[in-house]
């Protein structure tokens, strides 16, 4: 790597060289359009199948709102044709597909609630949030013409992230009914500021690491065959660790704590290439884990429920393994090909609409359906990594990496928790689970990735670092 110039201040050196490596803009966008049509078809089909499965008939009126969502995503496509014609053609259709599958499953849960004589309305709320998210993505695409602008907002991002993290603790704002204090309520609106904070953190980490990577790469002592950094360079990771522990202790939110620390570690590794940071990070996680396990009742509880969910005491305990167990039964009930949309019993798993939506999907779409969903995430993340891989500047690379890694990491934390790979922590499944802030955050991530991918391809190969 060459030494890093101050990119924010650097003049735009991009030159459109005739005959340079450029792809057909038309081809990319047409591919995107075709995939988007396919994604919308999946969305509509899923909604109608849910209806057929749950109530035995079709009511085409329910297509109205999904049609609006579809129209909005086509707007994104058209916007891209004009202001980011070289953007990656897979990201938007995959986001649309996942979002559509999520809405369909929420609609399915709504129907189950109606059958049980209750009111829920997850799907309509989710569709409104989706519309807001998609419009936000369009706004971001318009506002963010060059991602390097974000570097100027690095410290503002940090301040924003800290502010967002502290919000739920403000008296009167925080929703204290929930076990984890990660929500704020303003009037009728509930908001999970941690979801937005993850974008601000990714921006801050990327900016910080671009400037600090030289220092952080400096090798100190060698131990067990690994070069460890100098003691004085440990300060940043200790600060991040402390913040994450704070989240864990004060907000009782294991998932978010894991999300932020994992994000920082991986971005740090990408920036420096030093395995020692990962080792130090894991040691810190181990220390935090042991402390939390011994001094925080709910962490201890989660670990027990993870190791032995079948323990009768654990099943009956409040906040015990009943939910996890019913979710496992739901997945098992789905088996290889699933019960079919609208034909399972997803409502048996408590709060299936958020943390456990993957189990509801697994019950009705089966292992086959889950593999498709995981593969969609994997492709989405791979496209993000590709942007990082082809990136034109270190800030853009780190940002693309960080944002796409949050999606992968969040999926792993939630789905791994539901399927007993790791203890259950509780985060929203990106694009699938009910939640406005999560959808908003993920659509903003989509917009940033689209912008980055366009920038990457607009820049001829010979101009890159």
């Amino acid at each position, binding site marked *: *790597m060459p030494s890093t110039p101050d990119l924010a201040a650097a003049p735009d050196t991009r030159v459109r060289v005739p005959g340079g490596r450029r792809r057909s803009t038309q081809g990319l966008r047409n591919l995107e359009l075709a995939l988007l049509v396919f994604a919308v078809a999946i969305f509509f089909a899923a909604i109608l199948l849910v209806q057929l499965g749950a109530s035995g008939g079709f009511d085409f009126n329910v297509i109205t709102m999904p049609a609006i969502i579809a129209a909005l995503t086509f707007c994104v496509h058209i916007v891209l044709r004009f202001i980011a014609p070289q953007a990656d053609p897979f990201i938007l259709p995959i986001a649309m597909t996942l979002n559509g599958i999520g809405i369909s499953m929420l609609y399915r849960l709504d129907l189950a609630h109606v059958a*049980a004589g209750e009111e829920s309305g997850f799907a309509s709320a989710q569709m409104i949030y989706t519309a807001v998210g998609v419009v936000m993505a369009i706004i971001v695409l318009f506002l963010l013409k060059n991602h390097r602008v974000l570097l100027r907002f690095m410290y503002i991002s940090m301040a924003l992230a800290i502010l967002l993290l502290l919000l739920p603790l403000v008296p009167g704002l925080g929703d204290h009914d929930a076990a984890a204090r990660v929500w704020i309520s303003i009037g009728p609106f509930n908001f999970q500021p941690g979801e937005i904070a993850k974008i601000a953190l990714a921006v801050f980490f990327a900016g910080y690491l671009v400037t600090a990577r030289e220092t952080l790469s400096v090798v100190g002592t060698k131990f067990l065959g690994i070069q460890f950094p100098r003691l004085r360079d440990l300060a940043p990771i200790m600060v991040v660790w402390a913040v994450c522990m704070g989240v864990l202790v004060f907000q009782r939110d294991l998932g978010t704590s894991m999300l932020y620390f994992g994000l920082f570690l*991986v971005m740090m*590794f*990408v*920036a*420096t*290439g030093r395995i020692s940071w990962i080792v130090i990070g894991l040691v810190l996680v181990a220390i935090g884990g042991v402390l939390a396990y011994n001094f925080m009742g709910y962490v201890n509880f989660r670990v027990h429920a993870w190791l032995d969910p*079948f323990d*009768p005491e654990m*099943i009956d305990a409040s906040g015990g393994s*009943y939910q996890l*167990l*019913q979710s*496992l*039964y*739901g*997945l*098992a*009930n*789905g*088996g*290889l090909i699933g019960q079919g949309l609208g034909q399972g*019993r997803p409502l*048996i798993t408590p709060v299936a609409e958020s943390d456990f939506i993957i189990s509801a999907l*697994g019950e009705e779409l*089966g*292992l086959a359906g*889950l*593999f498709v969903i*995981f593969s969609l*995430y*994997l492709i989405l*993340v*791979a496209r993000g*990594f590709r942007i*990082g*891989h082809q990136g034109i500047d*270190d800030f853009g*690379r780190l940002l693309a*990496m960080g944002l796409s*890694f949050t999606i*992968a*990491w969040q*999926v*792993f934390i939630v*789905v*791994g928790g539901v*399927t*007993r*790979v790791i203890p259950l922590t509780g985060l929203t499944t990106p694009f699938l689970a009910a939640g406005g802030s999560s959808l908003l955050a993920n659509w903003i991530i989509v917009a940033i990735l689209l912008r980055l991918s366009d920038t990457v391809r607009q820049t001829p190969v010979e101009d890159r670092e």
Partner: protein
Amino acid sequence: MNRNIRIVGVAVLGMFLALFISTTTIQVFQVNNLANGPENRRSQLADYEIERGPILIDGTPIASSNPVNNMYRYQRSYANGPLYSAVTGYYTYTQGSTGIEDAMNAELSGKSDSQFFAGLNRLFTGQTPAGAAVELTINANAQQVAYDALGDLRGSVVAFDPATGAIIAMVSTPGYDPNGLSGPDQEQVLDTYNQLLADPNGPLQNRAIGGDMNPPGSVFKLVIAAAALEEGIATPDSPLENPATWTLPGSTAVVNNPSHGSPCGSGETTNLRIAIEQSCNIPFAQLAVQLGDDKIRAMAEKLGFGHEFKVPMTASASIYPDGPLDDAQTGLTGFGQFDVRATPLQMALVSGAIANGGVVMNPTLVESVLTPDLRELQGQQVSEFGRAFSAETASALESMMIGSVSSGVASNARIDGVDVAGKTGTAENGDDEPYSLWFTGFVATDTTHIAVAVVLEDGGGMGQSGTGNGSAATIGQQVMKAVLDG
């Protein structure tokens, strides 16, 4: 930096690989384990979606599933609940099930191995899964007569065909209405269940095959007589000592015959025939001591004591106490006291063995199992439990039991024009406790096969003044007559 991105890429691939593996493990390899996991609400509900097969008597359902508009899809209803409660048992969504509902659950819910392909076929042809029908061996008329005869009394009647083991009647009173336990409102079901459980008369006990078993008293003398005849220590007419009272060896307890202080019959000596007809205690106490507890136990076990018959619900094993017993205890078992306990089913089997030439048949309630398209999955299972004694012993016992009815203390069992063999019992439960009243017997013809046992707890409502002949024999007679007439 690209090298680092590739490494993270591999790590993410590893993370997703872990998710692929974990979901595959749950959704493919652990499916069966999880389906039977604790508190699996989905498996419970899936059971209710199956149209459970009916329980039939002569093709008429006594239990059937009807479509309803709630989460359970079907509701079990019982045509004549209390009459058949000892047979059908109950079927609840959350409190388990009993009786045929429990013992034949695999067939009724369509999940027995023999129904696997039928179920698969229905699945592919789009029909809702349905369970098999279970046709019972019960004779509706005999069941009704037995139930009416027991009336408000606490007791039980079991009647069966000694040649095949087919159970003709099985009543336990007080019965209960299983309809009260099959509703969709689980709180109400639990309430009803707790009320039944708390009822001092124990309606949930199936006295025919279990519950708190009663001492058999004098009906157990048939077992002692069988052992004595088999061992050759007595014949029906060989002389036996005839004291007016007898002090049990090694004890101060005095044994009396039914008329306290009187010998058994008017003679200097008595014999087995007189002792059975008059139901004398002293000769049987003496024979028991002479036989010893091992030989009595061996005979009792050949007749089914100590064995849990599957009818197909599990009948409690009747008890001959574990040895070694001292002579006084053995003497008491000679007339069915001390720790001997028996179910009416067991005592009916003793009569049945005598009627059937010494062979004990395994009792069963199931005549056939029929698929929804009326294909027979299973016919009546006729099987021998074993031979208890020789045909000679059987016919000797039969002649003495006929005497007991025609000219002895079981006179209330008489039926005009037919030889009835019978034996009564009036068992003590403790000094001030009401007696347990017994009758067991059979119709001694070659054409009609029925053996019956009746027990009445609480002295048949008369405390210590009830007698086996007075109450139990009358009921036995009515049930046998119903089968003869029917």
